[in-house]
C-alpha cells in the first residue's frame, strides 16, 4: 500500500470540546472553546459572560462610597486591594491626603491580601497538576490571614474595610501581635511549600518550558502582574508608580526571564517572601494619626477624569472615573489584570497538550469574576 492510500484510509478529525463553564480547571465559570486534534490543542477561544454582573454600569448608579463595595466582587481574592484602588481614585479627585497611619495600615493589609491570594493560588496550582495535598497546606496558612482580617473588619472575603478618606475603623488591638505571629509562622511554612512541590521532578517537567510567553508578547497583550514578570517585563506598580506606603519600604521586584509556567510560579513564591519582608518593615512602627480624613456625607467629585492604578495579586488594576460633578460618577471603567492576561492564552496555547493548557491556566491564576465584571 502506498503512502497516499494510507493517508486516505487513515483519516483523523479535529474535534471541538467545551471546557467549561463548569469545569474543574477553570476555577469558576470560564468557558474555553477548544479545538483539539487528539491530545493537541489547535485553538483556544475563551467565551466570557457567564458571571457578568455589569459592575461598571452599577457604579454609575451608586454613590462613591458604594462603589467600593462593588469592587470586592471583582477579584475576590484581593478584595482589600480593589477597595484601595477605588479609594485612592476618589481621594485623588477630592485632593485628600490620608494620614501616614492609614497609608501604612493599607500597605500591610494589602500585602497580607497578596499573601493570602498567592497561598490559594499555590494550593490550586498543585491541585490542577494533580498534587491534591497542596490545597490543604495552603488553606492551613490562609485561614490565619483570614482570621486576622476577620478580627479587624469582620469579614473574611468581601472586606469593605477601606473607605474614601481612610479606614472604616481602627485596626483591632490584636492586629499587630497576630500579624507578627503569622509572619513568624509562615516563614517556617513557606520552605515547606518548596519541599512539597517546587523541587519535584514531575512538577518541573510539567511546568518548565510550558506556556512560553515572550517579553514582547507580554507587553503587546498588556499582560501585567506575575504573568508579565515571569517573562522579564518589570511591571510592578508598587515600584513604578508607588502608592500608599510602598515608597517607604525596601523590597525587590520579583523578576524572572524564562517566560514559562515555572517562572511565573517562582515569581509568586518570591513575591510571598517579599510581602513578608514588607510587612516586617512596617508592622513594628505603625505611626499615629487620623483613621479617616473628614469627607462630606455625600461625596461629589469635581468635574473631570481620574485614574489610579494599583498592583493586585494578579497584576495592574486601573480605576478610571469620569465625573460630571454630581454624586454619581458619569462613567467608571476598571482595567482588570485578569482580562488582559486571559487574552494571552490563545496566543501561547496553540499546539500544546490539554494538560499543558491546564498547567498554563494554573500559572496564570485566573479569577473569573475579575475577568468578567
Amino acid at each position, binding site marked *: 500500500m502506498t503512502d497516499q492510500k494510507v493517508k486516505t484510509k487513515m483519516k483523523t478529525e479535529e474535534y471541538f470540546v467545551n471546557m467549561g463553564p463548569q*469545569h474543574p480547571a477553570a476555577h469558576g465559570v470560564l468557558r474555553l472553546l477548544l479545538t483539539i486534534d487528539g491530545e493537541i490543542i489547535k485553538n483556544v477561544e475563551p467565551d466570557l459572560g457567564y458571571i457578568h454582573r455589569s459592575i461598571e454600569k452599577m457604579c454609575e448608579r451608586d454613590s462613591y462610597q458604594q462603589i467600593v463595595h462593588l469592587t470586592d466582587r471583582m477579584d475576590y481574592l484581593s478584595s482589600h486591594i480593589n477597595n484601595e484602588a477605588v479609594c485612592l481614585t476618589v481621594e485623588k479627585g477630592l485632593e485628600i491626603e490620608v494620614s501616614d497611619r492609614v497609608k501604612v495600615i493599607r500597605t500591610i493589609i494589602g500585602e497580607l491580601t497578596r499573601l493570602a491570594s498567592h497561598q490559594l493560588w499555590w494550593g490550586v496550582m498543585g491541585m490542577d497538576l494533580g498534587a*491534591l495535598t497542596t490545597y*490543604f497546606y495552603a488553606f492551613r496558612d490562609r485561614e490565619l490571614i483570614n482570621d486576622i482580617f476577620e478580627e479587624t473588619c469582620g469579614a473574611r472575603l468581601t472586606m469593605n474595610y477601606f473607605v474614601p478618606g481612610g479606614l472604616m475603623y481602627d485596626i483591632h488591638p490584636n492586629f499587630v501581635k497576630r500579624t507578627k505571629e503569622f509572619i513568624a509562622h509562615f516563614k517556617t511554612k513557606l520552605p515547606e511549600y518548596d519541599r512539597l512541590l517546587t523541587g519535584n521532578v*514531575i512538577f518541573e517537567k510539567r511546568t518548565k518550558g510550558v506556556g512560553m510567553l515572550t517579553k514582547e508578547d507580554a507587553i503587546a497583550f498588556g499582560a501585567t502582574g506575575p504573568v508579565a514578570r515571569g517573562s522579564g517585563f518589570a511591571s510592578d506598580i508598587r515600584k513604578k508608580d508607588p502608592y500608599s506606603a510602598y515608597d517607604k519600604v525596601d523590597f525587590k521586584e520579583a523578576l524572572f526571564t524564562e517566560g514559562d509556567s515555572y517562572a511565573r510560579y517562582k515569581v509568586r513564591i518570591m513575591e510571598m517572601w517579599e510581602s513578608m519582608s514588607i510587612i516586617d518593615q512596617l508592622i513594628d512602627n505603625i505611626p499615629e494619626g487620623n483613621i479617616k480624613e473628614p469627607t462630606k456625607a455625600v461625596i461629589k467629585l469635581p468635574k473631570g477624569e481620574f485614574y489610579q492604578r494599583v498592583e493586585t495579586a494578579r497584576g495592574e488594576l486601573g480605576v478610571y472615573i469620569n465625573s460630571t460633578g454630581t454624586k454619581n460618577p458619569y462613567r467608571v471603567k476598571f482595567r482588570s489584570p485578569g482580562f488582559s492576561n486571559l487574552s494571552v492564552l490563545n496566543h501561547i496555547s496553540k499546539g500544546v497538550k*490539554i*494538560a499543558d493548557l491546564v498547567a498554563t491556566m494554573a500559572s496564570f491564576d485566573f479569577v473569573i469574576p475579575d475577568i468578567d465584571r
Partner: protein
Amino acid sequence: MMNIPLNIVSTVHDWLFSIMPEGVATVTEWIIVAALYLALFAVIGLYLVLLERKVAAWFQLRLGPNRVGPWGIFQTIADALKLVSKEIYNPARVDGFLFKIAPYFVIVGALISMSVFPFSKQFQAFDINIGIFFLFSVSSIGVIGILLGGWASNNKFALIGAMRSGLQTISYELSVGLSLLTMVLLAGSLQLSEIIEVQRTGGWLILQGHIPAIIAFMIFMIAGTAETNRAPFDLVEAESELGAGFHTEYSGMQFAYFFLAEFINMFIISSIAVVLFFGGWLSPFGITEGITWFPEFLWFFIKVLIIIFLMMWFRWTFPRLRVDQLLTLEWKYLLPLNLVNLVIMAVVIWLNWTF
C-alpha cells in the same frame, strides 16, 4: 500440618459430598467459594476506600471520615448503600449495550485475578502451574472495560480518558511483565505456591536477587501504579483536565464498579509484589514458623497493606504526569532498563551470585 482453615474447608467438603451427588456437590462448592471470594473482595474494596480517605486525611491535615461509626468505619458501607440505591441512569445517545457491559469487564477482570493468590498455605482458590501468566492475562481484561466505557459514553472527555487508558495500559504492561519475568527467572516457577516455597528456604526473593531484584521491584511499583491508573499516572481520570475521565457519564452502581475495581486492582498489584518480592504469607525471619495455630494470611495482609500505603503515599504527594512524559518514561527509560535488568538477573543466577 493441620491448620484451622483447612479443617473447616475439608469438613464442609466432606459434608457436601455426603449429602448430595458428586456433580451437584462440586458445583455447590464452587458457588460457595465464589460467594466467599466476592464477599471478601467487597470488604477489601470498601475498606481500602476508607483507608485511602483516612491516609489522605493524614497527609492533608484533615480528620477524614469520622461520623458514621467509630473512626468512620461504617462510612464506606453507607456510601455503598447509597450507590446501590441510586438510579442507574443512561444518558441520551449512549451505546446502550456497551455502556452497560463496560463496568462488568472491569470488575470481573479484577475479581478473577484475585482467585489465584495464596493468602496462606491453604487459603487459595486454585493453584495453577501458570499462576503469574494467568494473573498477567486476566488483569488486562480491565482495560477493555475502560475503553468500552469511554467509547460508549458519547462524551468527548470520556473518550479522551479511555484513549489515554489504552495507551497507558498497553505501554506499562510491558514493564510489569518484564519485571515479573525477572523474578520468575529467579524463582524458577510460574506457580505462585512454588514461588513462595522457594522463599521459605532461601529468604525473600528481593534479598535473594539483591540488586537486580530491587531494580525490578522499583520498576514494578512504578509500572504497577500506572497499571492501576493511580496518581501520578491518573491521566485517565485527571479531574482537572477531563472532569472524571472515562467514567464521567456513569452513576450509581455502575460507577461503583469502576471505583471498587481501582481499589481491588491496587490490592492485586500489591499482592503480586508481596508474593514475588516479600515472601507472600511467610513470616519475616520465620518468627511464626513453628506456631501452628497462627493465621499465616495475617502476614500476607500486613505486607499488602504496607505496599498499599506506599501507593497511597505516591498518590497524595506527586503531581500528575503529562501523556507524552508518561510514554517517554516507559519506552525510553523503564523498558530498556528492564531488559538490561533481565540480562543482569540471568547472569547473576548463572554465576550463582544469589544469596
